[in-house]
């Protein structure tokens, strides 16, 4: 497969990357595991790539008090082997692609690409992560809830670069988990569910649940969260709470040759219940 012709520029810093992108009307290239294949399939023709993959200070996982900062160029393999981030993140990162993809693909590239079947957006949404964004006029921080807007769309402006994501540090009494029904071919999520559950005396005191793979963008499962809080975390209660997702899916549930919209709707509570149950076990 041969991509259309493109120019290539390599940036050494965030500032340089932003300037190059603007000057050449280019597209940022990180690990290249989403962008390059669509170029080779000639579904994208950006004309110019600004390679940010060697901006070293965007790479790495840094605990900082009650949060952990993950640089945008941190690879999935680094997340998969990290003990510093909430469990759901390495759990999800291990399910991405294969070892080669995990060694090249980056957190920032994955998140900015906003594939609806991707794993990390769902986990980051459940964790209440915030996205660090730098533009010409300075930096801003956007919560994951607001970051993903539609199919392959985020709040990122053309002249902005995602530099990292910040997630809460692991906390005693809170467990996190990710459960996925994978597409048997691509291993992307047919349905993926992530949960962060705080438990005290056997009861759920706080819940954050997100679901992806079946809607144009990953979504918080507010009804499920409300149904969980205050409940004893028994299998029956978790199952009942997970069933609350049904009313909040709306008409946008997607279907394809592997999984119809109806099947995906049926799988949503199953994956949510699995994620919640595992999270409770880790709390």
């Amino acid at each position, binding site marked *: *497969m041969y991509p259309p*012709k493109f120019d290539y520029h390599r940036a050494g810093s965030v500032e340089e990357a932003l300037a190059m992108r603007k000057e050449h009307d280019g597209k940022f290239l990180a690990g290249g595991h989403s962008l390059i294949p669509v170029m080779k399939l000639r579904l994208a023709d950006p004309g110019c790539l600004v390679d940010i993959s060697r901006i070293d200070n965007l790479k790495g996982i840094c605990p900082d008090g009650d949060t952990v900062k993950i640089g945008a160029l941190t690879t999935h393999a680094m997340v998969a082997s990290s003990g510093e981030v909430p469990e759901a993140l390495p759990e999800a990162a291990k399910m991405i692609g294969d070892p080669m993809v995990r060694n090249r693909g980056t957190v920032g590239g994955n998140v900015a690409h906003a594939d609806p079947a991707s794993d990390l957006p769902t986990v980051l949404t459940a964790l209440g992560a915030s996205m660090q964004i730098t533009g010409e006029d300075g930096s801003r921080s956007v919560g994951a809830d607001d970051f993903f807007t539609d199919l392959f769309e985020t709040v990122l402006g053309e002249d902005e670069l995602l530099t990292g994501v910040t997630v809460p540090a692991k906390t005693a009494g809170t467990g996190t988990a990710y459960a996925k*029904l994978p*597409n048997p*071919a691509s291993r992307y999520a047919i349905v993926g569910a992530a949960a962060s559950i705080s438990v005290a005396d056997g009861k759920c005191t706080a819940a954050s649940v997100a679901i992806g793979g079946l809607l144009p963008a990953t979504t918080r499962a507010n009804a499920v969260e409300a149904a969980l809080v205050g409940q004893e975390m028994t299998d029956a209660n978790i199952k009942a709470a997970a069933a609350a997702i049904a009313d909040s899916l709306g008409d946008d549930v997607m279907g394809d*040759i*592997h999984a119809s919209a109806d*099947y995906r709707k049926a*799988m949503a509570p199953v994956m949510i219940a699995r994620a919640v149950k595992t999270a409770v076990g880790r709390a």
Partner: protein
Amino acid sequence: MSKYVGQSLKRVEDPRFIQGKGKYVANLSLPGMGYMAIKRSPYAHATINSIDASEALALDGVIAVFTGEDLLADGIGPLPCGWQVPDLKIPVQNAIATEKVRHVGDRVAVVVAESPYIAADALDLIDVDYDPLPAVTDAKAAAQDGAPLVHDEIENNVSYVWELGTKDEYEAALNDSDHVIELDLINQRLIATAMEPRACVAQWNSFTEDMTLWTTSQNPNLIRVVMSAFTLQVPEHKLRVISPDVGGGFGSKLPHYPEEILVPWAARKLDMPIKWVSTRSEAAVSDTQGRDHVTTAKMAFNNDGKITGIGVETWANNGAYLSLVAPLIPTAFYITLLSGLYKVPAVYGKAIGTLSHTVWVDAYRGAGRPEASYLLERLVMMAAQKLGMDGMEFRRLNAIPADEFPYQTPVALSYDSGNYAGLFDKAEELAGYADLLQERDAARAEGRVVGIGIAGCIEASGPAPSAVAGALGGVTGFWEAGTIRLHPTGKVTVLTGSHTHGQGHETTFAQIVADELGIPPEDIDIVHGDTAVITNGMGTYGSRSASVGGSALVVAARKVRDKAIKLAAHQLEAAEEDMVFNQETGDIYVNGAPDRATSIGAMAFAAYTAHNLPEGMEPGMEEDAYYDPANFTYPNSAHIAMVEVDKDTGETKILKYIAVDDVGNVINPMIVEAQISGGIAQGVGQALWENTVYDADGQLLSGTLLDYAVPRADGFPDFKIDRTITPSPHNPLGVKGVGEMGTIASTPTIANAVMDALEPMGISHLDIPLTAQKLHGAMQGTAVSAD
């Protein structure tokens, strides 16, 4: 007797493969080479109004653009069909379509450019004006009145109808037996997905008028004959076809392909070397695909558990054109196998070969025989269930007794050897079948959805006795050729017409020759895949390499050995019949006088010096053999699996897999086990995951590996593999085929296991692939369509 045959020698080809040092067609680069890209139809069926290549030709670096008109003007012939059943209607297929396109991926034009990038850019600049037409993709729907015609001259899209068997007896069995089961089933279309996509490089010498074509073929000699006689029309002695290292075929690299015409044709026209390498997406719309049957099957049986008759009516989808041996697969490779391992007095089958607006279908690992085994074993399981009999017991009851071989079936074949009851016994023992049943029942008591599947399967492998093949429609012979060249220094070059594209012939064929000549395998080189070097050949498919290609080497090696013995007798001044040959060492001595000795190596040297030869003996030590098999070989298998279906999601997990196969004598146990293992994985792919999906317009929706689910290692437990051995009586090695057995057996084994798991819910049959969505829907009592 055998020092090397039977040993698990490590594969001599592996070091180069695992270090990336294999030499594939795509690795080849010639000075001044141009790159071809192929403009393919985005429509399943359309009229071509016009093709405007002016913008493409104006692009810097584009050398030429050719269309079908250019091809016809040069007198390049259409692709032939090499298996001609009676009254076969063969549609015209040129290497580039003219007037009409008939499947997504059909060829419309070719570009030659200075780089593959420019060639790809140029494709986007070729403007083809189409009028889209309605399409039909289903094997059976294609034959209904009013279906869009793929070729106007072929009525109802029916290319052939083929019947075999004892129809009257079969119909009587349906009437007279205690029970009849009728089953409508689909054997879905598969995309072969060999690891290496196809590729061609051609070089033309305008002075000598020699053409060399490097191509990813399972049978380069056959391709050369077809190209010389029908398509490219370069004289056979001026055409050299080379298939170097090839990364998997599974049947999809058996046919003669349009690209094998287009690349050398353009190389000659432009007088420059040209290369074409398929992309994975291109492979999905241009490589031959597999299976695609719609069948109604019936089995009659009595209360005593005896099967009395079996019959099918099958619509077989051939795609838009007939590939090289397409009509063979749903006919002589399918209906002849319908009774499997069982003694069934009445068997009848009818195949209706249809054309549709889809990619062509041809041989795919097993080729016809998996389709037969799958439906037979589904019926067997359902019959046993109906009688309340254990599946193993039912199979053993109906198995052909070991003392009835050779066994003549009602559908033409004569099974060579077997002990099917012994096979089932061994599988039962290896699986711990009784414990497995208890384990299943205990799991069910916990509310788990667990099932056990069994399949007993047979294959007719090692095609074929040439006269039989000719009577059934084969255009060519099906012998194999081999040459043994014993060099003066005692080293050996072996030329074989078989082709290895993963099978390990460089190792196993050396083991065979080593034992025949008493020369160690490291002194023996196996050469294949080059028509300029090897004697002749029919290539590799149908699990034929060991039984036909290997046998040719045995015959040739024995000629060499006999000559060495004759020469030794002469030089040692003894009678030829008094000579003893030590197959372990290669020593030749006079019986009773071991000090009067020489060796095969020494005799090789003596044969070339030719100072002291017996009267009439020619110098040299090289012999050819053409081996035409007396019969097919009949490998057979009993596989058992236990699966669990996730009742929440419908996903199937294989808990245990046990395989016992009788592939006759074993040359290299490690390679046999690997063949069986890979075959099992491939067959499970069909049972659970792989699905080729066309929409109503004929668009392929599963055309990338993001959507076409091939099996992966993490989907499998460790297999328990063992074997029984009943040597084939009619080839000198006693071997049977092994390459396809695992694939044939594992599809029904897993399908039966899943259906057993769902049996307590009253579900008796679902079509493969048994995807998570389909099983979930069935368990919920709601049918969920595939799309």
